[in-house]
Structure formats: structure tokens, C-alpha cells
């Protein structure tokens, strides 16, 4: 069973507009959430994270929102740039096994110039 779901395999947006990537989870024990970005032939790189005690975390153009009651988080990229084109993975962990990240399948974001 998939505990972290990214239901959109791909997303295409225009440069300068907002990109919104969504992620749902089923395990209510998850209390830490991360977004990773992956370019082809490279390993995933950490982008931004959020603890379950918060509902928003912002870092430059990237903002992650957490809705615990809906078990949903989203990553907003504003403004989107062509260099943001990559696969974005949502991941989660529990405080009891904080070393073990559970990943979604990823969303391929394409930002068109």
C-alpha cells in the first residue's frame, strides 16, 4: 500500500507562473515531510521540509503547506523558472523511525519558457 501518494505524474506550467505540486499521505504517524527535486541521472536533492507542528514553511520561491486534517501537503513555486523543470518527490517520516523516508512516485514538472 502506498502511504505517500502523488497523484499527478506530470505538470506543465509557463515560466513566471505558479507551480503547485500536491501530495497526500495515509499514515497519521507521519510528522515530518520533505520535498526533493531530481534531475535526470542525478540523485534527489533536498528542497524544503516541514514539521507537523507547522502549517507553512517558506524558503525563497518555495513554500510548503501542510493540512494535517486532510493529510495533504503541497509545494508552491513562485515564480516558476525553466531550471525548475525536474521530478519532484514528496517524502515523509515518523519520529519513531525518522531515518526512514517514505517517498511518493514523483511528479515531473516542466516549466515552459
Amino acid at each position: 500500500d502506498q502511504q505517500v501518494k502523488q497523484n499527478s505524474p506530470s505538470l506543465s506550467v509557463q515560466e513566471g507562473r505558479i507551480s503547485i505540486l500536491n501530495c497526500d499521505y495515509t499514515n497519521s504517524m507521519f510528522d515530518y515531510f520533505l520535498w526533493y527535486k531530481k534531475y535526470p541521472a542525478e540523485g534527489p536533492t533536498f528542497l524544503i521540509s516541514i514539521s507537523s507542528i507547522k502549517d507553512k514553511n517558506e524558503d525563497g520561491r518555495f513554500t510548503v503547506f501542510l493540512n494535517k486534517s486532510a493529510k495533504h501537503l503541497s509545494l508552491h513555486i513562485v515564480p516558476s523558472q525553466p531550471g525548475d523543470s525536474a521530478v519532484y518527490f514528496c517524502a515523509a517520516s515518523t519520529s519513531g523511525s525518522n531515518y526512514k523516508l517514505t517517498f511518493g512516485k514523483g511528479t515531473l514538472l516542466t516549466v515552459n519558457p
Partner: protein
Amino acid sequence: GAGVSQSPSNKVTEKGKDVELRCDPISGHTALYWYRQSLGQGLEFLIYFQGNSAPDKSGLPSDRFSAERTGGSVSTLTIQRTQQEDSAVYLCASSLWRRASTDTQYFGPGTRLTVL
């Protein structure tokens, strides 16, 4: 500084052969993790090391899979009697393990394993 490195980058093997995948973590990182990504799937946790010991091996798919870490640094993931379903990208990550719940895992580029 140097990031996590993995070798080989690509490995093609025949069904039934053994393979060894190597990971060099970032210098000074005490925690090391192995994941794999099968086609169309997310990353799947395999095992993690704290120093040379592996407190959690629960993600290893079968007893054909084993891993070791020596000197608190390099790790080797061994797959014996490979099967076609073992074909995947095997990713290694490392972290400092200073504050457990907020440690960032830094990933290597992965080893793409193809079992014919």
C-alpha cells in the same frame, strides 16, 4: 566538498550472478542509507547504518540482499543470485545525524542495475 559517490554508475548482469554496489558517503557523515527506485515507483527504503552497525534492515527485500559498512565510511550493497525484479536504480544517501528528526539526507547519483 565532494558529495556522495556511487559505483558503478551502470551495471548489467545476468540472472543468477552476484553483484556488489559501492557507496562513498560525504566525509564525516555517520549515517548512511540505501534506497532503490524501481521503474515508475518512488524510492523504497532498504537499510540504514549508524556508524558500522545497521539498526534497521527491514527494507531488504529478501535474504539475497545484504549490506555492510566498514570504518564508518564506505558501504557495499550485495545482491546474490540476482533476479530480473532486482532491476532498479539503487541510491545511497548519507547524513550527519546531529538532530535526528531534521537531518537532511544527501543522495548519490545512483547505480542503475539491469538484470537480463
